[in-house]
């Protein structure tokens, strides 16, 4: 039976495709949240595979906090066009027009209004009953117990004490009107799996993941890219050119770069295996306290 061995990547792929198809079959109005990051890129590819040769039967949605790296937005628009994606972009315009941003309002207010609230607005506006997210269980402690199909009440809230048991690959997809499910098809993937899959499948990713000379400012130990002139001038003046890359992508003022010379996926994997920092530490929002992610999830953040 040796020829019927299946590699862990193919097994993970098959499980994810199964999850994605299950949602498309059982929900009336699903959406796939697309963050432009590497995990999202893998998730979108899995969706394309799940329905091949047909088109993915649900839209992708990007919650644009208006503070993303410019290269992310360029990448998003180019790939959506080239691959004929049905892409929804939503921003919390009310907060944006009031000038909310991380430099003026701090990371917590910004994240809440431009990410969490923006997401909830978009879900309500479109009446989505299922939303795919690219989160992985190995990212962070509180995610280790998250279900693949994670139930949310009418207020999009997650109750860690009251999760539905999830057995085999038999997913309970029943929700009442107004309730919804967050679905995490990449739950069982690790960071290394993601990189190996990107390499194996030649999945395009935002160039920010690769090292390059970039102007960065050291803010409280985080190397922040001077991506546009909304960064206060006194900070921008301190910028230095450094060979850096990003291990995760988000709002540029909240995402620290790491010094690196990795210009290929092989370099990145090599660096990752030797590295001393786990992935999310370069995200400033996690820094406050250990249980902060759990708190954000209860409130509706992915």
């Amino acid at each position, binding site marked *: *039976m*040796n020829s*019927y*061995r*299946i*590699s*862990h990547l193919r*097994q*993970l792929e*098959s499980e994810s*495709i*199964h999850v994605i*198809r*299950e949602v498309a*079959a059982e929900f009336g109005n699903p959406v796939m949240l697309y963050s432009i990051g590497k995990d999202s890129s893998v998730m979108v590819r899995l969706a*394309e*595979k*799940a*329905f*091949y*040769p*047909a*088109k993915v039967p649900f839209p992708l949605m990007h919650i644009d906090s208006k503070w993303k790296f410019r290269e992310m937005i360029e990448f998003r628009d180019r790939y959506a066009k080239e691959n004929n994606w049905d892409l929804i972009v939503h921003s919390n315009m009310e907060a944006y027009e009031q000038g909310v941003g991380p430099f003026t309002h701090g990371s917590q207010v910004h994240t809440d209004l431009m990410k969490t609230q923006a997401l909830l607005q978009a879900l309500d506006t479109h009446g989505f009953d299922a939303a795919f997210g690219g989160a992985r*269980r*190995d990212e962070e*402690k*509180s*995610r*280790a*117990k998250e279900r693949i199909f994670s139930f949310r009440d009418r207020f999009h809230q997650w109750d*860690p*004490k009251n999760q*539905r*048991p*999830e*057995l*085999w690959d*038999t*997913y*309970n997809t*029943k929700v*009442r009107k107004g309730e919804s499910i967050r679905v995490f098809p990449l739950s*069982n993937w*690790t960071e*290394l*799996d993601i990189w*190996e899959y990107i*390499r*194996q499948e030649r999945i395009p990713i935002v160039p920010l993941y690769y090292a390059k000379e970039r102007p960065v400012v050291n803010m409280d130990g985080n190397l922040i890219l001077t991506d546009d002139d909304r960064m206060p001038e006194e900070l921008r003046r301190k910028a230095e050119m450094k060979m850096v890359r990003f291990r995760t992508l988000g709002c540029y003022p909240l995402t620290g770069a790491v010094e690196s010379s990795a210009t290929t996926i*092989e*370099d990145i*994997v*090599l660096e990752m*295996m030797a590295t*001393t*920092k*786990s992935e999310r*530490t370069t995200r400033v929002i996690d820094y406050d306290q*250990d249980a902060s992610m*759990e708190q954000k999830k209860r409130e509706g953040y992915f």
Partner: protein
Amino acid sequence: MQISLTENTIAEFLRHDQQKDLLRFLTAGSVDDGKSTLIGRLLFDSKKIYDDQLAALERDNLREGHAGDDMDYALLLDGLKAEREQGITIDVAYRYFSTNRRKFIIADTPGHEQYTRNMVTGASTADLAVILVDAAQGIVTQTKRHTFIASLLGIKHVVLAVNKMDLVDYSQEVFETIAAEYKNFVTRLNIPDVHCMPLSALRGENVVETSEKMAWYDGKPLLHFLETVHIAGDRNFIDFRYPVQYVVRPSHGYRGYAARVASGIVRKGDELMALPSRKRSVVTSITTWEGELEEAFPPSSVTLTLAEEIDVSRGDMLVKPHNIPRVGRHFEAMLVWLGEQPMVADRQYLVKHTTNTSKIRIDKVRYRIDVNTLKRSDAGEFELNDIGRVVLTANRALFFDPYEKNRATGAFILIDPVTFNTVAAGMIIDRVSEDELPSKITGTSAVTASGKRSRVPLDEREARFGQKGVTVWIMGLHGSAKNDLAYSVERELFDRGATTVLIDGGTVRSGLSRELDYSPADRAEHMRRVAHLCRMLNDQGLLTICSFISPDDNIRRQTAEIIGRERFHLVYVDADPEFCRRSDPELYEKVDRGEASYLPGADMPFEPPEEPDLRIIQEKDAIDVSGVLDYIAARGVFPLV
């Protein structure tokens, strides 16, 4: 993993790494068995814990640690705040690590009795279970419970990790006593592969490296075993089952059936049968994004196209015509109750089985099993964490295999129809044979003399009609001309002044029994309804003439009991099976081709009655009513003068 890999070797490393297979295992133990420490040790020693998580650990350790001078590995694991405060894990947590040989997913489940639910959840996807005991405590009740659940969920490999050997001075005698007791216990369960290992997770003895302190132990350390245990053979490559998940229809004439291969192997050109339609077609392609495949095997997700357009949709199952699963609405299963609300018997739940969702009723609880003693006891209804054997009836036929043979097609969940919570997990044992069905036609004890309250007694009715209220039950094979005979008899009796009612299968099935199929269990229910109808009509003094195949003694006896033996007159139309075939070749041939089923005398047995009240030999097409009429007159049912 080597940190000193150079860029040249990294490509080689990745090529190797991508080909590793995946082992999912479960860890279970009592609160103080050191389970979290063991997992922390596996993660730590396999060098997958990143330094900043370690830094956070050191910080936490000052505040909450329980391990004295040693690093408290458990703190790495307990995710949710509430749990950390209580010092126990209360939900299944998944952990990931890899070595040079394999990738691993750990389902870490808590030990407390009230969390049977979580262990069942974790066990449902695991290939292997590591069950921990404290060497100083030995086998405890929870050890037995964990082992039973592993066995119940079909886990084929179990490791008993005898932990904290450091507390018993690494004593061989202590270990062997525990191992012997455990092996004695597991012989009562269905676990093919059991290993006992002595270790100390805290001190790292025999976890990754062979322990010098336990030189007497000649087995491999735990991690080595996990890396090498053979699990691919646990998959079912024999019985092809393809529960259709989604129909892929891009605009241009392509129609593909997307699913995950649950078991078995499918190749291009294979003939497949669709359930429930039993229509056949041939696989023309196995489509994937990478290109077409020649064959697909579990657990791949693929898309099949078929030569002929047969109607297949989500919830249907594609199988091989000569290896079909059980098809039926009635089955027995082991059920684990997961809901906070207790089970309500006779209430309709939703069942999700493969890609099918249907309504289902719990007909009977056969027993509840005490997970600690394995003793069975009677139970009315289940509460949270109860486990036991039940009989279920779904509203439509499911396509299933016993769980023991096929995890994917033997597993199901029950969903509360109001709250939509998942309330139970089930593992199908087998189809229920008709004579074992509870509360079906056998429930004759509930028949009481009806009509008692009527102010018109039966004898007055019979006097007015000038007849006896009886049932003339005409039976025989399909095609034996029993219907013709019944209609002719009725016409004749009516013409002579009798007040008659004619009941035949087709009429009842089109209305009263329209949700029932031809399976033995449904047939029994169908007959039960007809029998009660006859009884009511007879109580009104009406002469009832019935025409049913009535294939076995069981059905006939029970029908007679419901109607009343003295009022039940069995007429057997005895026709040669070949004669019957000739009168409806179409149906018989359909059954031969497998497109129809449950036809007595064709694909299921037909037992002729040994002592019918009247036997009519039917050899030619002509109908002769005289035999039946003479019988009726002779029994004083209706005077034929």
